């Protein structure tokens, strides 16, 4: 089921940060996007076209899987590689005058790189065999962040709690952590989400606690259910991080090039396909490099 969750999250990431965000940045709100926002996003109070929800599901899955395995150098390389490739690619695309999603030229070339950073942190959290000291320490760190008004780390800290929840859930499922301890840590994570939402500038309007609630509930409802391994599920799950970082580089560049030349829907399809191909190439690169370092 982890593969299915990751695959679904990957699709939603592409939908949110390539299709939804690009259209929003270019002042477009066409159907069916407007219909989906009216009938799904707004009733559910899920913002940014389900992007944060998808990122949270990915991080929950990461917390769950890293709790079960001690990360090696090869695993860390595999995790970091998408950003190491996407950043220079984004810089080159910007230099070539292509449309790329960045926060600003020269600062934040890959806006979702912090998610990859959190996955590296997850590998460290996974080293905690007992299940509770590291999550408890991270929660204390979050309180300190708030106390010292460190706004810049607020959003990553909020999403980091999802790694902790995934980690704790796995420890409880494996019998390492008693249920009451897991519940206490889970409640602590939600308290941290609520605290950050309330105190960090710019977060309140996005209703991240609601997205977190959905992500955790979907994760807990689904994670114990066996699911078949379909090829498309495996394909998407294996390339989730590549899709995440390349949507704003390859996808935006292709959409930027095509949207004035072909109908918008065709341009979007091409951009999604190009992103998929680039993600596949990235995944193959990962396999080659990590085989060599084995």
């Amino acid at each position, binding site marked *: 089921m982890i593969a299915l969750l990751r695959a679904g999250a990957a699709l939603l990431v592409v939908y949110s940060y390539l299709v939804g965000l690009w259209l929003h940045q270019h002042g477009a709100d066409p159907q069916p996007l407007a219909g989906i926002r009216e009938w799904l996003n707004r009733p559910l109070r899920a913002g940014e076209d389900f992007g944060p929800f998808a990122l949270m599901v990915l991080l929950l899955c990461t917390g769950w899987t890293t709790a079960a395995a001690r990360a090696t150098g090869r695993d860390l390389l595999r995790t970091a590689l998408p950003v190491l490739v996407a950043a220079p690619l984004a810089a080159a695309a910007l230099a070539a005058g292509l449309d790329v999603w960045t926060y600003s030229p020269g600062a934040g070339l890959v806006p979702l790189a912090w998610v990859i950073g959190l996955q590296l942190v997850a590998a460290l959290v996974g080293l905690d065999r007992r299940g509770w000291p590291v999550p408890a320490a991270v929660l204390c760190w979050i309180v300190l962040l708030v106390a010292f008004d460190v706004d810049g780390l607020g959003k990553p800290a909020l999403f980091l709690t999802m790694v902790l929840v995934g980690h704790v859930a796995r420890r409880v499922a494996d019998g390492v952590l008693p249920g009451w301890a897991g519940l206490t840590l889970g409640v602590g994570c939600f308290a941290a989400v609520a605290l950050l939402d*309330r105190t960090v500038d710019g977060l309140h309007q996005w209703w991240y606690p609601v997205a977190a609630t959905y992500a955790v509930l979907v994760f807990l409802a689904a994670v114990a259910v066996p699911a078949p391994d379909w090829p498309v599920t495996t394909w998407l799950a294996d390339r989730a991080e590549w899709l995440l970082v390349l949507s704003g580089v390859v996808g935006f560049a292709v959409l930027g090039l095509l949207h004035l030349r072909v109908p918008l829907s065709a341009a979007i399809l091409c951009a999604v396909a190009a992103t998929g191909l680039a993600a596949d190439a990235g995944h193959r690169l990962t396999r080659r490099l990590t085989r060599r370092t084995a």
Partner: protein
Amino acid sequence: MRTGYLHGLDWLRVVASAAVVYAHTRDWFTYGHQTWWVNGVLDTAVLDPLRVGSLMAPLAVTTFFLISGLVVTYAAQKESPGRFLARRMVRLVPALWVVLLAVWLVTRLGLDAGARGEHAGDVSTLLTNMALLNFATGSPGLDLVTWTLVVQVPFYFLVAATIPAMRRWPWLPPALMLTLLSVLMSVVRNEDAPGAHTLRVVVTLLPIMVLGQVIALTRLGKLPVPAGIAYGALAWLLVVRGDLTSDFTPAVPGYPQMVVCIALLTIICSRLTGGVVGARWVKALADRTYAVFLLHVPVLYLTPHLLSTTAGTTLAFAVAMLGTAVTADLLYRFVEKPTVRWYRGWENRGQKSAERARDDLAGRVEAAR
């Protein structure tokens, strides 16, 4: 087929019961022009960050409807249509009538027990309330929380009517119900008349009970998981459609959000067993949630008068909570439980003990009305 008592749902029922008492108590403090420090603390620490401050009522109602839809579907697997309906009515009606009669008598004595409307003390008011017809005619309401029964009772009739089909084609009852509700939603557009408004409320919220039914059928293995997800999504979309196309129903926002959260919680909690989940005190509390639901508003509004104080004072609050607990326990012990026991005894008259055991199993899986 997974049957057996669903202990995890008892927790949800208890939490939902607490939520509805909390929401009405908050309004009661405002009614008495008092500040409730609990509300201030809870709002700041929990409700505002999770954006559920105004969602306590949808949370409670959604939970009751979803769980009810789920557990009566379990019961419907083993009961004939007539027996199914009779058992649901025996569970609901006696306690309802006792509470309505008590509120009516208190109102006739000139005391405020939450009854609203000029002729609340008339006999016709009592009779229309007992038949739940006050919501159709706009007559005064004696216990306004009973509006939820106006949604549940039609669902029980629909389930009873589709029991024969459910055994053979489990997908057919939810499919038929969703189609019927969709058609009614198209037809009932104007809500000016009380009856039309009530019908619109039923049509908008009954899909939540259908969603509970779908979850049950999927858990029982009668629906494949993809089909369960599809039907569930359709039921949810009907709730959204009802919300988007009416200015009046639901009266408070947040139902679509709550339905998804509670459906997922129900799926998670229905898997929980053992330890504190199966504790007897949890079941004891869960068994009394219907009584608490019926009694808490009348007790809240009556208490200040009995104490010669205003709504919202600490003393009135403490006495009202204690009064609710005591009266709910009395209602459960001396009305609900004996009537169910008597009826089961009447049902099983002349039956051998083995047959009785099979029927009682069907009764035991019923975790809620």
